[in-house]
């Protein structure tokens, strides 16, 4: 490789420059919407009305952000997105924790404590992943009503737990399938029970797949709109629903700068989760695939 670059130094360099140019071009293309959102969220409304969406702000103001967060009209009440942001947190965090633990336990049982029909059960759980949300709306509403948690945050947690479990189980099952069974046997001979093996042997080696599952679940549940709008009340409606209400609340003028700020606020947590743990995401997907 290096010998080839030496023999044709110019050709290699040109190719490399072209490659980078193309990559930078694509990066700009994909970052453009984010730029538009950011730039316009810190402009006064008059400046946007002048019609130049692409321009940098002439007057820098964080007023739209403050408005979107705590003052803007969402539906009828002028609360801003703040209460809904907490609604989302209160829904996402428990759901992610519950689903990750249950998914890990499922994966453990399906690979290391197999029983007759384990594969059929797993197949059915996988099938659950591919049932469209819309089909489940009415049955879910019936169940939530029956349990008396319709319209509550816990109701949403339950729905998301049911929907997230299929994928979480798939992730952990495939990861644990590559985990050496001899380790489990060694631990059994050492006297470790079901949960001791799970917490002391299996979980400490599950870092990458836990990260993958958490990112996947966090993103999906945070971004969900349909369940939120169907089963959420004021006390439990998540951020996505509030954002929709914010944008579609007709109070005369369209406050684009506030809408942009709100949209960024709504997307921020998933962005942060991904940036913080993204490198584990890729590594986790790889290790699950390659590890023999």
């Amino acid at each position, binding site marked *: 490789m290096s010998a080839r670059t030496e023999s044709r130094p110019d050709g290699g360099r040109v190719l490399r420059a072209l490659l980078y140019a193309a990559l930078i071009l694509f990066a700009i293309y994909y970052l453009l919407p984010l730029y538009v959102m950011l730039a316009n969220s810190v402009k006064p409304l008059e400046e946007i009305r002048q019609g130049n969406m692409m321009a940098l702000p002439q007057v820098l103001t964080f007023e739209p952000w403050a408005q979107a967060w705590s003052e803007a009209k969402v539906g009828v009440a002028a609360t801003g997105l703040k209460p809904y942001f907490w609604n989302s947190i209160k829904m996402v965090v428990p759901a992610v924790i519950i689903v990750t633990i249950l998914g890990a336990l499922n994966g453990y049982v399906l690979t290391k404590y197999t029983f007759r029909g384990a594969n059929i059960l797993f197949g059915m759980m996988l099938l659950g992943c591919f049932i469209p949300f819309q089909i489940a709306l009415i049955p879910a509403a019936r169940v939530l009503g029956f349990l008396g948690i319709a319209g509550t945050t816990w109701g949403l947690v339950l729905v998301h737990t049911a929907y997230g479990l299929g994928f979480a189980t798939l992730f952990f099952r495939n990861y644990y399938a590559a985990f050496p069974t*001899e380790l489990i*046997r*060694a631990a059994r*001979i*050492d*006297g470790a029970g079901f949960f001791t093996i799970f917490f002391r042997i299996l979980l400490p*080696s599950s870092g990458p797949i836990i990260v993958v599952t958490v990112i996947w679940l966090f993103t999906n549940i945070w971004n969900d709109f349909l369940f939120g709008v169907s089963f959420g009340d004021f006390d439990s409606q998540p951020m996505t629903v509030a954002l929709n209400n914010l944008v579609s609340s007709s109070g005369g003028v369209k406050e684009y700068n506030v809408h942009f700020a709100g949209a960024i606020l709504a997307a921020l947590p998933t962005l942060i989760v991904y940036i913080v743990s993204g490198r584990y995401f890729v590594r986790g997907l790889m290790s699950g695939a390659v590890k023999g």
Partner: protein
Amino acid sequence: MGSLEIDSLDKSYGAAKVLKDINIEIEEGGFLVLVGPSGCGKSTLLNSIAGLEDITGGEIRIAGKKVNDLAPADRDIAMVFQSYALYPNMTVRGNIAFGMEIRKIPKAERDEAVHRVATLLQIEDLLDRKPSQLSGGQRQRVAMGRALVREPQVFLFDEPLSNLDAKLRVDMRTEIKKLHQRLGATIVYVTHDQIEAMTLATKIAVLKGGVLQQAGTPAEIYNNPVNTFVAEFMGSPSMNLIPAQAGQGPNGPTLSIARKAGDPLVLPAPEAVAAYAGRGVLLGLRPEAITDEEAADRNARVVETASCRIDVLEPSGADTYCTTDLGGKDVIGRLRADAPIRQGEDATLAFNLDKAVIFDPDSGERIA
């Protein structure tokens, strides 16, 4: 009363019987090697002893106590796995102490036990490392340390050397043997390597297709195999099984072996062969029982010599192996390295018939 007794053990997965009526016993301090080709059920048998697999019928007793329904941890056993199965997230110290930690043994006692075992196996320097930082041989030692620290009634080894390279395997083999002599522990050891079986065992059990073929001391298994399977499986190069015709001569029963050129080779046979007169049998002779004249065992009672065409000569340093055609089969003999024998020429070979075993060609069972 043996340290480990296996009494008419059966094991099946659904309709498939993988172990059939196994009876083995090993005395305290004994070294039992379970050997056989892959898929013969030897690992299943070991896992059954460990309690990692349920058995379908029969009884397993450890130190006289029936353990059929006990959990692996309650059987007073320790196991060394083929892949070592070291817990990757724990240090060497953590690995060795894990079992004691589960059994809630006080910390001071644990540390002392770890130290004792580490000294014995010379792994004191490695105690704070993770398994991923160890070489194959070191992992092997740690895995043994984890077993040793329990001081169990019976140690179970599942092909522990098969992941090591050839040189290290021989070293560790010697080390296991030394350890066994020093500790006087009872060991059950699974391998498919018949040399490991011969060198380590006080008792070998040969399995095939879930059936115990023969159990006995290494010498018994080697010299007196009960059937052609055991005869061929143990020993390297394996035993020659020469097709021969049983007959009756003036001095008793004979075996006549066809040769490519010239008259058949006629050898005297034991009395038991008389019943087979006129029928084909298999004459089993190990390569070391077919030698050049000079190398023939002087203490042997019956040594026959015959001229044979040497087809191939394979010098291996200490010995030279020769191949000749007898009864239509390639027969291997073991000559002295400097025997004056040349490839493609006739040479006089000595057959030590004291060592001969004779099998029924149809059933493969031993006749004499």
